[in-house]
């Protein structure tokens, strides 16, 4: 194993002093002018971030603990969301859809990425050229395009009627349709990340392992999988986060009950005018995303340990 543990940075071709200003690697004390320069250059971005991200987040957290009547401190908004039947069904439904989406997209993307990386045929080249297309289609356009195909009176149904059947896919207004649409969006993204990870594994390494008699399955389990693990985790994290809060797909394709949290949030906010409960729900969604962010940071740190080993 040790012969393949070359530095990760070499593997992906990042220069060792990446992230330092030129010459700073061998630390000379930065002058105050340099500090001021950096601070001034960062100031607009920092102010903007504080103003449009940090301030609203703080505001939302405070509001989520406020009583709608007099603004005093209360846990009632959270208690409602975590005990109410409708709300709990929606949370469970959302997590279920997101987990299924993450698992299916990663599985499919990984197989697709392996194929694109290790098979050099005309078909793989063709797929390699077009698999990113979904990233360039606006989401609302894609959702409506999908609907015209899968709805009970859609393209599939019309084709089946040409042959004397009346096939109704039954994919609209339930979880199956949402998951199908999520796969459409996320497979391209996950494949892109995993292909990049697999491309950084040199052919020579795989070939040398094969030369000394490693079986394909061993090459996969002991080399390819560990070397791409971090990127798979990154892909999973991003798919999880973007789907926990998704709105367009579940709003247009979902049923009436249960509903995903993005749609539920809109209902609380603009249909019931329960601003405090909406704030608490945002915080809960934020926490779900944080869990995946923590997993992401943790895997990143682990990678650093692994790099230290040599």
């Amino acid at each position: 194993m040790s012969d393949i543990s070359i530095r990760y940075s070499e593997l992906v071709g990042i220069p060792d002093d990446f992230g330092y200003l030129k010459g700073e690697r061998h630390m000379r004390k930065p002058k105050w002018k340099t500090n001021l320069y950096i601070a001034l250059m960062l100031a607009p971005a920092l102010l903007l971030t504080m103003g449009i991200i940090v301030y609203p987040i703080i505001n939302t957290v405070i509001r989520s603990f406020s009583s709608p009547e007099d603004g005093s401190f209360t846990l009632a908004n959270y208690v409602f969301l975590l005990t109410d039947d409708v709300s709990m069904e929606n949370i469970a439904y959302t997590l279920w859809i997101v987990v299924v989406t993450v698992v299916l997209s990663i599985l499919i993307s990984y197989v697709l990425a392996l194929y694109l990386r290790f098979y050099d045929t005309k078909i793989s080249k063709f797929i390699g050229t077009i698999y990113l297309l979904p990233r360039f289609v606006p989401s609302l356009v894609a959702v409506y395009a999908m609907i015209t195909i899968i709805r009970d009176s859609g393209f599939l149904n019309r084709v089946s009627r040409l042959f004397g059947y009346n096939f109704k896919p039954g994919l609209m207004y339930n979880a199956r349709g949402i998951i199908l649409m999520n796969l459409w969006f996320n497979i391209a993204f996950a494949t892109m990340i995993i292909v990049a990870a697999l491309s950084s594994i040199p052919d020579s390494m795989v070939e040398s392992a094969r030369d000394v008699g490693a079986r394909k399955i061993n090459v996969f389990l002991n080399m390819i999988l560990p070397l791409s693990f971090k990127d798979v985790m990154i892909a999973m994290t991003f798919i999880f986060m973007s789907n926990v809060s998704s709105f367009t797909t579940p709003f247009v394709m979902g049923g009436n009950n249960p509903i995903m949290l993005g749609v539920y949030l809109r209902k609380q906010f603009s249909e019931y005018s329960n601003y405090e409960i909406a704030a608490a729900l945002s915080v809960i969604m934020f926490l779900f995303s944080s869990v995946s962010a923590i997993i992401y940071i943790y895997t990143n740190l682990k990678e650093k340990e692994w790099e230290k080993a040599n």
Partner: protein
Amino acid sequence: MKKLCVCAVLCFLMLSPFTLFAGGQGEGSAAGNGGGKPKVTLWATGSDNVRMLFEKLIDEYNAKPGSTSVVELQFVMSGSGGQTLSDRIAAAKLAGKTDTDFDLLAENGSALASYVDKAGGDLFVPLDFSKIPNYANVKMKSGFFTDCVVPYRGTTVVMAYDSVRLPNPPKTWAELGAWITSHPGRFAYNPPGSGGSGAGFVNLALYKDLPPEAKVSTDEKWVEQWGPGWDWLKSIHPYLYTSGGKVVYPNKNQGTLDLLINKEVDLIPAWADQVLTNISRGILPESTKIYQLTPALNGTDVVLAVPNIGGGAEKTYDFINFMISPEAQKICLETIFAVPVIDASLIDSTYKTMVKDLDISGFSVISNGKLGDVRNQYWDKNIARLP
């Protein structure tokens, strides 16, 4: 030092769009004043079709040699996440401003209550109708703030159906219930929180047997009277449109229209103007027809009103008078299939046959304000979760 200067300039450049934007809003009002005529800023809100309508009407008005003012449109797109028009006007009013450019407002009659709720009872200026000669032709006097508003068009929820698949649609509420149960899966309405046509249908179920004063009341006591309406909605639930083995209520006004377009259902409640627009574009077949139920689904008049923080009513009268002239009413009808507020015989247009069954004086207005939230929440909790 040179570097410092450079980055100071850079910082200024990065921040300048914000400061310029903040400072630029009030400007430009003095400019572009055509030949000494006073400028009237018209504020309107709604979907894009309403913006197109006003752009057409204003071009027409400003081009008239006899016009006594120059109208300029400020349009607030609904549902774009920005500050609503009512919030903006209320903010200006509560800040004590009296000299704003909120000269004239176009809004649904049933929505005016929310403006007054926020900004106070004296927001709208009483109008001198003797200076609006065409007002004599207006068939419907608004039910809200009658002395302060002039209705210029109507909009209503109707029943839409395909006359080929459904030659004899149910005309009354009782017939509708019987038709739905004998034709499982052929009727759909959208969740009341997702669009006005579903809300109109649910409102009718809840209010049809209540006294007339309930329809324009925001008093919580009426919520208790909704029981029979909810029971009726629950009773028809198993007979509505299904997909994947479950009854579904498609989101948005367009959701049910899509079902009608794709022949998945035969009858839906829908906004009259949306159906007519779809027919005229060939998305719905010519055989699609609309009619009004007995009792009627709810509609509203859309009115012009003058807030007391603008430039006063005097300079707006000429434009208001134009808006209810046969000429402008024809533009409203032909652009967004608006129901005219004047007698159809005064309008010269082939389009009027399309709205001939929609008489604005027969509109049933339900304006229950914040009770709408209670209704949506109850529906989501009790109807949407039925198996």
